[in-house]
């Protein structure tokens, strides 16, 4: 496609009578912008009597043809293509384009609403979505519980393999990262405690600080947040891509229950894995604290353990561990529900994965705060 030497243009020759519109050069995509500008300049300067000269028209493609249609109007062009001297290909192209463009018109843009209205409508939408989401998650939790209870008495329909596979993915595979992270946080908490408590001459209480915080809060909270990021997103992506691929519909048409097949094994797996990981997290956090105590506070491991044994009651451990199943259930439920909400596109999978992580972390932290208040009031 070598460009022709003549500059592509549309010019109005007013010297002749009647005036003559000359179409010159290559009307192709490469010249589209300049041709569009020049044809816009010409608008209104010519009428039905103006002659049109297409003889110097070079190459033509759909972009140029559509410009010509706009410049001359479909009706005019249809008469021209029959009479004018044109190569057969250009004639066919022009005919094809004006035939298809005839019923094509640019849709009118809706007038922009004022910023205030837009702001209010977005707030309204957000509140409504929040309410609908809450209803949905509550309904879904109910559905899972119902399915769980119904299948509990039918051992034949327990899906042990699926549950074990998910325990491996969500529990065993996550153990190293949970252990490392809580070990580091345990060390950090011990450092903080040592620094602050040293001012009161009470650095020995660093042991209590680490043990209390990890048994009651940090162990379970850190694990749950990690699981929300790691597992909830995985559940959403797995179920979401199945939904996008119509696999969920296939399950339904085969007379199977997607909740029983996909959700219950995941929920059960996380119900088992999260308390186990929480236990691991508590131990690793306390070890992290113990290492710092031994290295920077001269509290030997033996002394650390005896302090732990004498000061910390078993109820702290139980308080922490009791929260784990609730977190597990909600994380799995939110992850699966967001997966089911995916619609068709790849973008939707991404959006719902993000949403499932955000929601599950939010729910975990809110629930933990409520639980902390509750346990405090109960004096546990």
């Amino acid at each position: 496609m070598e460009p022709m030497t003549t500059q592509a243009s549309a010019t109005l020759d007013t010297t002749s009578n009647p005036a003559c519109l000359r179409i010159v050069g290559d009307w192709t995509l490469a010249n589209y912008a300049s041709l569009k500008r020049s044809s816009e300049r010409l608008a209104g300067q010519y009428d039905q009597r103006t002659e049109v000269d297409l003889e110097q028209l070079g190459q033509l493609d759909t972009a140029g043809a559509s410009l010509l249609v706009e410049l001359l109007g479909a009706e005019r062009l249809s008469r021209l293509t029959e009479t004018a001297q044109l190569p057969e290909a250009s004639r066919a192209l022009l005919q094809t384009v004006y035939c298809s463009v005839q019923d094509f018109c640019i849709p009118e843009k809706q007038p922009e609403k004022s910023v205030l209205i837009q702001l209010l409508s977005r707030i309204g939408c957000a509140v409504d979505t929040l309410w609908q989401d809450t209803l949905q998650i509550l309904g879904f939790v109910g559905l899972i519980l119902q399915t769980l209870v119904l299948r509990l008495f039918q051992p034949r329909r327990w899906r042990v393999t699926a549950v074990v596979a998910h325990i491996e993915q969500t529990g065993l595979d996550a153990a190293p990262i949970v252990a490392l992270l809580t070990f580091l946080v345990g060390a950090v908490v011990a450092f903080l405690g040592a620094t602050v408590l040293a001012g009161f001459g009470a650095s020995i209480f660093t042991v209590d600080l680490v043990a209390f915080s990890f048994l009651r809060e940090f162990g379970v909270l850190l694990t749950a947040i990690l699981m929300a990021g790691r597992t909830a997103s995985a559940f959403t992506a797995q179920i979401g891509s199945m939904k996008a691929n119509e696999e969920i519909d296939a399950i339904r048409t085969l007379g199977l229950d997607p909740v029983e097949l996909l959700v219950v094994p995941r929920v059960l797996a996380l119900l088992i894995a999260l308390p186990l990981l929480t236990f691991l997290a508590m131990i690793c956090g306390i070890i992290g604290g113990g290492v710092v105590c031994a290295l920077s506070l001269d509290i030997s491991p033996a002394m650390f353990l005896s302090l732990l044994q004498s000061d910390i009651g078993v109820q702290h451990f139980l308080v922490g561990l009791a929260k784990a199943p609730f977190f597990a259930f909600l994380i799995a439920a939110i992850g699966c529900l967001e997966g089911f909400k995916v619609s068709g596109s790849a973008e939707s999978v991404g959006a719902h994965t993000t949403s499932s992580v955000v929601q599950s972390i939010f729910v975990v932290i809110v629930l933990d705060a409520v639980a902390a208040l509750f346990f405090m009031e109960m004096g546990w």
Partner: protein
Amino acid sequence: MSQTTPERREAVIEARGICNRFGTQSVHEQLDLDLYRGEILAVVGGSGSGKSVLLRSIVGLRRPNEGQVKVFGQDLSGVNDEQRSKVERRFGVLFQKGALFSSLTVTENVALPLIEHAGLSRADAEHLAGVKLALAGLPISAADKYPSSLSGGMIKRAALARALALDPDILFLDEPTAGLDPIGAAAFDQLILTLRDALGLSVFLITHDLDTLYTITDRVAVLSQKKVLVAGPIAQVEDTDDAWIHEYFHGPRGRAAYQAATAAKEL
């Protein structure tokens, strides 16, 4: 492969000695195929005979294990990225499932190559995209929709509009009529024929649709036994002495399509 065309025409694509292997499994061995300027070439073959792999090798999505593909007389494996991109802009590819970008509306899908390659402003590009959509026979109401809310036929048309966005010289179509109803499929065939005549396209078409073969193709290439068994006008291909080809063209479906095509020509 025997030269089947009487007059020597300009080949826009020359594939020579293509070998494609996946592990130990070989799909193509020493495959030769030409696409001439302005023709509609259909590639047929059984499932798994490597039609899509051949398409991917030609458009450069897969480097063949052996052999070379010349496009407009230029071997693409030896050129740098910039030149390669320049040649690839002259390709329009319609993928089997459309492959529209799901995060963009139909208009934005078609406007994307116009903005990126032709350097048009967004408004110009979207306007021109509207023309392409009209050309592909898509109603204007579909222009602002996302691909997920379109029917199969509309997705095909939108994808065709995107393939045509840069006014390509060569159009690659991977099973364009699969999954369309007969009316839609016939209309799509006619659309391809019209566009070929109007835009002077060379069309590389993979299909299983016998009606398409009989109505719009200039040449048919049969892919079998890891190479192009025969390539030529359909009358010549269907008389080839090969069990698979015989069953393909002279089976009940082939007969029906042939009769329909001849009846349509007599009318």
